[in-house]
């Protein structure tokens, strides 16, 4: 009975949902237009860019090679340095934040220590503190101990991820059974060995998600490095491209023209690593992102 309802209910759906599918395709076009624009226009020379040709189609000459050369040689190859810096901040920042979140989330979920409820309430309050409100006071503190304009000025604040702790807590609470931990303890495993060998493997999906979220957050960060760094060799790619863009805008069409084509290609290149990471890790994040909203 139920099987028949399901099967008869399923087949006509294909056609019935056709209008919805067409609507979805239109939405996809909207979401892809900026990518398309960047892909097309990064192939143009500055003449092609300002020549008044079709903004959404290729010009007659495809200039990718030339633009790539310009992008990676401009300013002594500073763009490659920016990309490396972004990767460094994203990995050291993201991995650090994840390790701290895993430890603390597990601690909150599996130990009934004194002060736990109060500490957890403070943690939840901290989720609501906007991170940008911390940038200016952190900058002043760092400047007093000589930390501004170093890589640590960008990395240390990234390690603070209260929401990551919350997610790990939720996940560890539900996915790591107390009986299993007790069994390991009875077998003589210490607390840290129990954590490493029993709990950690069970927490893997949540760990990948928190890691991905932290890496994205620090790769995309702009306000913090903009405030902390003045040496352009330490800039991440977001601040670097922002700098080029303001230079190009200031000098207008006259001096800025040659810069625009590398800004456009630079934007394209800077988004490729994360898009590749997301496509490759689909299996993990699609389920993981809903953590904390289900139970």
């Amino acid at each position, binding site marked *: 009975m139920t099987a028949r*309802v399901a099967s008869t209910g399923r087949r006509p759906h294909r056609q019935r949902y056709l209008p*919805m599918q067409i609507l979805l395709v239109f939405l996809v076009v909207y979401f892809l237009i*900026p990518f398309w624009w960047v892909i097309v226009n990064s192939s143009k020379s500055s003449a092609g860019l300002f020549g008044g040709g079709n903004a959404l189609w290729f010009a007659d000459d495809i200039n990718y090679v030339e633009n790539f050369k310009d992008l990676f040689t401009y300013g002594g190859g500073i763009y490659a340095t920016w990309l490396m810096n972004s990767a460094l901040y994203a990995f050291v920042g993201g991995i650090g934040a994840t390790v701290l979140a895993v430890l603390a989330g597990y601690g909150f979920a599996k130990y009934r220590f004194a002060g*736990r409820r109060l500490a957890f309430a403070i943690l939840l309050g901290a989720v609501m503190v906007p991170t940008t409100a911390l940038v200016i006071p952190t900058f002043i503190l760092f400047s007093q101990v000589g930390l501004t304009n170093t890589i640590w000025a960008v990395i240390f604040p990234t390690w603070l991820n*209260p929401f990551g702790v919350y997610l790990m807590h939720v996940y560890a609470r539900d996915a790591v059974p107390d009986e299993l931990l007790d069994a390991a303890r009875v077998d003589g495993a210490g607390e840290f060995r129990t954590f490493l060998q029993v709990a950690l493997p069970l927490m893997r999906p949540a760990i990948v998600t928190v890691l991905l979220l932290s890496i994205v957050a620090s790769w995309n960060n702009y306000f913090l490095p903009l405030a902390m760094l003045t040496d352009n060799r330490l800039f991440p790619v977001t601040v670097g491209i922002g700098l080029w863009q303001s230079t190009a805008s200031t000098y207008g069409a006259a001096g800025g023209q040659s810069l625009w084509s590398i800004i456009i290609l630079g934007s394209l290149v*800077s988004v490729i690593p994360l898009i590749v*990471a997301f496509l490759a890790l689909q299996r993990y994040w699609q389920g993981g992102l809903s953590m904390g909203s289900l139970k």
Partner: protein
Amino acid sequence: MNAASTSAPARQGRFRSPTARQNIFGWLFVAPFGIVFLTMLVLPLGYALYLSAFRKTLIGGTHFVWFGNYTKAFQDPSFVSGVWFVVKFSLVLIPLQMAISLAVALMIDVIVNRVARFSRLMIFMPYAIPAVIGALMWGFLYSKNFGPIADVFGAFGAAGPDFLSSDLIFWGLVNVVTWQWVGYYMIILYAALQGIDPELYEAARIDGASQWQIALRIKIPLLSRALVLILVFALIGTLQFFNEPKILQNLAAGAIPDDFTPNMYAYQQAFSLANYNYGSAISFALGAVVFVCVYAFLFATRKRGSFLS
């Protein structure tokens, strides 16, 4: 905490009282994060509060003004109009984002085919783009020099809308942020939909419910928790609006002043004018506004389940 308990926690653990073990190891696991929490959150917030109680003047030097900077901020048209702007912006943006992400999530939940899977991935993609680059991309599209808008409208002999003008910049920004975040919210909602037991739909269908009724009466109520979570994130993110207007500022000549949002104003005070005391006060006041708004919202919706429950 003595050395023996770290070197041989297993053997010691069994003889200790369970409470002592819970206390020691609980705090040991939480401590590394706790240190970062104290140095990167509590300390800066406390310091901001301290700094904000002083004022620096050219003649009088630095002197203590209690809450003077806050009374100044809440009377400062730049700060007040910035707060008003982000509140207005949130009121337009957040319902729009939530409606689109909910509609898309519900659609791809019923259309189970390749089109749905492909759309899900493509609509999510902007989340992986830094806000700076996203704003830049849309800035290009809006621009008269490079953008297609002028071409498209020109073909019909009309002047296109200029989203970088002071009249339309509001909508230009609404569009950028919607584009950036709808996919992420959609994925959260979609994953929550996947967690619903399909037998509920089956039962409703046998009772004669249409797909519309199932969506309205079963799916949306069961998503309330995810919707609250999204709303909180969107609210926290939007009230501290900075990246997109900062980037579009260069392209939109004059449409985005330095005091456009509270965060831009705080940045200008601290880094362009070296007015750290007032900048800290604005940061702290903005943090407090966000905290109070979000807390009030969570408190109002606590029955539906949220962090606080």
